[in-house]
């Protein structure tokens, strides 16, 4: 696999929400990245509905129908629905397939009856837990691919949140070990993404389905989540920022294997991905507070093409079911951005999104389009290996944070960051050497099986 060595966008000012260099078109003619921001709603079943296939199918039928109906009721013209598989759906691949078929049918009906244009994304659950199974050869692995097959038949888009490297990552992050994180994300994650996405792309193409993309949720979002808010003392926010920069190279592999976007919503590294590849991306921010809190609630919308809520449990609210409620909110968020495009004020609007969060937190800072682009540039300029580009991204990320005096850090955050950068600097320059060191260093971590990654 050849690593990307040039930027799709020649400068960060050109990257704008709603528009991507390489838009994609879904089965019912929805153009993603073609000029408009489109809401992407993600409903999640209530506890207990996983009990059997019947209750689960019914749950998604309702949730998805509520979302579609709300669009018609308030006039939102376009919608993407994503159903993230719960464990049981991927573990029983026919379940996910039937739900995809049902949703496709619902969308056809809404199109015929009202003219609403919708599309469906199935996100298969990665049930290959690295410390339990061999990632490349296990029943779980086969079920994952079977699920892709079942779903791609009916869905517009397929995605996954792949798990490669998680065993080493979890071990490392709670030990403040940036070397281990880099190894987990860039080397193990990168190799797993490559292995799995070559196959996903084939399956998707066979069924005329769009291979959407991956996310480093398993690692970078764990870091973000642990970094938490200003009151949290789990890990430094600067570590989460570096981890995000590192994640871009890992997620990029999926596109290098043929995924075309739209990228997965929870990939906060997507602004970097869009800068590098020009593919459309989904992002989530303030309106995904239902799923988790974040310190980049507005800025993460600055270059989005789909705008998502990450996930909301299906339940009744005063204003209707949560699926309907969040569809309404996301749709209005999107309408506002699209209105700015129509008025020709999109640059000003984007500036507001950025100014809201630029200096709120280092994690937000590095995802501002200019910084995201610069990190992307460090990645493409260091395309010798997954290792070199990940390290370059992390170093550039640190440099940016330290280089802007308005980006305030606590003394502890600052000191931690300096330590991480020193450690990154001290690593060997060659991927092979780095791998050798790490395979040795982490050989005794419980559940680490190098064969899962072809070592």
């Amino acid at each position, binding site marked *: 696999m050849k690593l990307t060595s040039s930027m799709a966008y020649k400068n960060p000012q050109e990257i704008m929400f709603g528009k991507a260099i390489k838009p994609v078109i879904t089965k019912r003619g929805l153009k993603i990245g073609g000029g*408009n921001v489109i809401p992407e709603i993600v409903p999640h079943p209530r506890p207990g509905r996983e009990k059997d296939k019947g209750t689960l199918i019914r749950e998604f039928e309702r949730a998805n129908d509520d979302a579609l109906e709300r669009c018609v009721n308030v*006039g939102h*013209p376009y919608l993407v629905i994503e159903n993230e598989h719960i464990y049981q759906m991927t573990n029983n691949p026919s379940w996910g397939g039937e739900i995809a078929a049902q949703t496709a049918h619902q969308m056809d009906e809404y199109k015929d009856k009202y*003219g*609403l244009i919708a599309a469906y994304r199935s996100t298969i659950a990665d049930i290959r837990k690295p410390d339990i199974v061999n990632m490349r050869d296990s029943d779980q692995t086969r079920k994952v691919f079977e699920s892709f097959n079942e779903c791609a038949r009916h869905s517009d888009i397929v995605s996954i949140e792949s798990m490669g490297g998680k065993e080493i990552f979890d071990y490392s992050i709670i030990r403040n070990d940036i070397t281990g994180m880099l190894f987990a994300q860039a080397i193990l994650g990168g190799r797993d993404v490559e292995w799995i996405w070559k196959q996903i792309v084939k399956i998707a193409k066979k069924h005329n389905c769009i291979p959407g993309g991956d996310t480093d949720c398993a690692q970078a979002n764990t870091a973000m989540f642990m970094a938490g808010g200003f009151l949290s003392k789990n890990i430094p926010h600067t570590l989460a920022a570096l981890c995000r920069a590192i994640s871009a190279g890992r997620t990029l592999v999926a596109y290098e294997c043929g995924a075309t976007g739209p990228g997965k919503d929870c990939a906060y590294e997507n602004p970097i991905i869009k800068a590098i590849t020009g593919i459309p991306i989904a992002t989530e921010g303030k309106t995904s507070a239902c799923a988790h809190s974040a310190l980049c609630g507005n800025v993460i919308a600055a270059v989005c093409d789909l705008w998502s809520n990450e996930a909301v449990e299906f339940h009744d609210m*005063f204003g209707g079911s949560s699926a309907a409620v969040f569809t309404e909110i996301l749709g209005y968020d999107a309408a506002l951005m*699209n209105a700015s495009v*129509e*008025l020709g004020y999109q640059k000003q609007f984007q500036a507001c999104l950025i100014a809201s969060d630029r200096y709120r937190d280092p994690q937000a800072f590095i995802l501002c389009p200019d910084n995201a682009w610069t990190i992307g540039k460090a990645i493409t300029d260091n395309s010798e290996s997954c290792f070199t580009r990940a390290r370059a991204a992390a170093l550039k990320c640190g440099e940016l944070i330290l280089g802007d005096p308005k980006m305030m850090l606590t003394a502890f955050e600052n000191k931690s960051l300096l330590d991480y950068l020193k450690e990154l600097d001290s690593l060997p320059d060659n991927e092979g050497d780095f791998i050798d060191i790490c395979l040795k260093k982490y050989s005794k971590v419980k559940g680490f099986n190098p064969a899962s990654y072809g070592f």
Partner: protein
Amino acid sequence: MLTLNGEIMKTKTSSIFTRFDINLEVEKQKVRKVSTDELLQEVADCVAEGDDDEIENIVKNVLKTKSPVKVIDEGLIPGMNEVTRLWDEGVYFLPQVILSSDTMIAGIALCEKRMGKLMEKKGKVVTHTAEGDIHDIGQVIVNALLNAAGFEVINLGADVPVDEVVKACKLHNPVMLTGTALMTTTMTAFPKIAAELKELGLNIPFVCGGGAVSEEYVISFDYGVWGKEASQASAMAEDALKGLSWQEIRNKWNG
């Protein structure tokens, strides 16, 4: 200073919103003829137009030549049925139904006066809005639609204590009980009512609706049937009249 309104007015909007209602407007359907008799058709038309000023003259006139039972059965009620049909099909709006119902009721009153007794209603339905809750417009609509469908509505009004609801059920033994609540902190009266009814052996389908009231909540207690739209109330009452049990009604309308 910027003045932007001109630009806003020139904006293309198709990427921002779609006016689905414009595409949806149902072809103007007409009230169908319900009688070959000119006078009875006039009664039905008056009901369909909801003209409760005019109905008095028209009914008085037709009563000169026809029996009050005939006027009710072949003029007033068929007229109302047409309105209900058009409302069900999405042609008519709610006020048209209410005004027609008012008109039909005024006409029936005149016929009853002539008969010297009240017309026999289909059955009784007790309606109420929960204790502590003043959001009763949902109930008002339910009342009107039940009336329109020919049920006798025992309207207990809003903010009705649990005991009074139970007492009314004991007294009237209705085919159905309805409850409206718009607050999650008032709908808690419903399971209490259901429990007391059960203790008294009053097996009455208890249809609960209103903004705050979720299906999940209502089907968590015996007798409870969830009512989503006011328009369901009369169809549910018809089911109860036919003798369907609360379980059967729940299975039919909920889930």
